């Protein structure tokens, strides 16, 4: 089973993003480095939700913004390790829409349930499989590390 590791600061901040945009969905990219068994997230980038027509239950990061995020991650020696978004007043479980629109194999998709404006459960799902045809979401634990235990970046 894969593991998603991040500092408490990153964990708290990406959850807070879901509170900021409530009742709309937030979204952003997770930047990190690969571990033998998952990803270590070093930072994240908030993105705008391009689905302004239905922001309460849909999100999209525009490809143009993704290109800029990818460029920034490369300059920092990091990779796009996954993405996060919020489910306002809805469980932190992937939906059929999430699955149909997931194409970053090997990356992590983090979902935070935001209930009445407060961040509740946060879960992560690794998009496993080798191709678009056999992809699947697998639940993975999030290891939240204290800053004192973090290695240098």
């Amino acid at each position: 089973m894969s593991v998603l590791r991040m500092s408490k600061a990153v964990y708290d901040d990406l959850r807070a993003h879901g509170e900021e945009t409530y009742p709309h969905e937030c979204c952003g990219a997770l930047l990190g480095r690969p571990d033998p068994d998952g990803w270590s997230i070093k930072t994240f980038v908030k993105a705008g939700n391009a689905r302004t027509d239905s922001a309460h239950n849909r999100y999209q990061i525009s490809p143009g913004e993704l290109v800029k995020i990818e460029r920034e991650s490369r300059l920092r020696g990091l990779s796009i390790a996954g993405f996060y978004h919020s489910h306002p007043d809805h469980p932190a479980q992937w939906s059929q829409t999430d699955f149909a629109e997931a194409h970053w194999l090997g990356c992590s998709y983090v979902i935070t349930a935001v209930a009445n404006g407060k961040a509740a459960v946060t879960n992560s799902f690794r998009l496993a499989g080798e191709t678009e045809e056999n992809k699947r979401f697998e639940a993975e634990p999030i290891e939240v590390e204290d800053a004192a235990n973090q290695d240098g970046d």
Partner: protein
Amino acid sequence: MTIFIPTPLRAFTAGKDAVEVNAATITAALDELTAAFPDLRKHLFTSDGKVRAFVNIYLNDEDVRYLPAKEATEVSSADTLSIIPSIAGGR
């Protein structure tokens, strides 16, 4: 030119996040890329050779879909091509 490879496709480029190609057009650049790394082809193209709907290709900061000549656009060695799968979803 340089083609930037997104995280999920690096498994098919021997871990490289960027590949240099010497091509005159976007189509030729993608052909050279997939000739060097044949396993990439099915991830980028449908069985009839079209770029998969969820794969975005950007020439520098421009979406290739909206360029007048699309994939036939001429490129230079200083240009960059970014392959970016789409990201979307919702509850």
